[in-house]
């Protein structure tokens, strides 16, 4: 799945996802990706976020909406992402998931739920301080 967040110089935000979902799903199954607030969410007044992972679990927590609400209350993007992951971890300690967050000043962060086979999450960043897309990694919590 790709989850994407874009913020322009005026602070206009957009977010989106595209996926073909889980392998071998039961026909008719839809995950978090197309659900606003779950797969992605954006609000010029606060910021934007997108989630990826096991959509059956992510869908139940509206992680992108939750992250934007944390940023609306002043959390920095990395903390907002971490709080969302911790929230889900309480109920599903072994869930597979990661979130990317950005506020309207252009600060960004990411977080993921640590599993034996998933200890780091890679995401891409491109902003006016760079001249090409850059891969960044975050250690899962």
């Amino acid at each position, binding site marked *: *799945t*790709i*989850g*994407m*967040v*874009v*913020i*322009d110089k005026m*602070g*206009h*935000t*957009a*977010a*989106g*996802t*595209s*996926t*073909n*979902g*889980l*392998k*071998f*799903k*039961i*026909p008719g*199954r*839809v*995950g*978090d*990706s*197309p*659900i*606003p607030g779950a*797969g*992605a969410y954006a*609000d*010029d007044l606060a910021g*934007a976020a*997108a989630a*990826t992972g*096991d*959509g*059956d679990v*992510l869908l139940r927590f509206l992680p992108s909406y939750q992250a934007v609400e944390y940023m609306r209350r002043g959390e920095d993007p990395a903390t907002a992402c971490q709080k969302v992951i911790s929230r889900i971890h309480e109920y599903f300690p*072994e869930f*597979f998931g990661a979130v*990317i967050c*950005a506020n309207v000043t252009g*600060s*960004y962060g990411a977080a993921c739920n640590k599993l034996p*086979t998933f200890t780091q999450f*890679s*995401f*891409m*960043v*491109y902003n*006016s*301080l760079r001249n*090409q897309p850059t*891969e960044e990694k975050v250690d899962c919590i």
Partner: protein
Amino acid sequence: SSPLPLVLNTWPFKNATNAAWQTIASGGSVVDAVENGCTVCEAEQCDGTVGFGGSPDELGETTLDAMIMDGTAMDVGAVGGLRRIKNAIGVARRVLEHTTHTLLVGESATKFAESMGFTNEDLSTRASKTLHSEWLAQNCQPNYWRKVTPDPSKYCGPYKPSGVLEQGIPAYKEVDIHGHD
């Protein structure tokens, strides 16, 4: 100085990041940028989890989910379980632009897409068909069934409700980080 504009995306899908950035750099809107970035990933089938030819369901079909949200207008367009249309994020954009709805799903979403000029075509590929036949050969493991009979941890379906917790509690499923939403 403010680092804006900013493009951020999950996983190391670099070409998608670049396409979104180029859209902004050439004067496109942030919604254009998200659409173009995700469209690149659909066309490139990023790590098999985006676009056609990946993640077949139990019947071997690939279906697509996508959404796009405009954070200025709080407007959203989304499709779920889209069948036989490759450019899911493009269809999601049409839902945003040409309807007051938010989410269209399934076969009817396909008919909407066709009315918007998208091509109806098979989303499976040799790779997705091979993936599916290998899964069938492994007694349909892993799967997402529980409290059904026959025992879903051993056999393929069709299944019926059994009211009994699994005959054997499914072992912890190894996370497939190439199988995600």
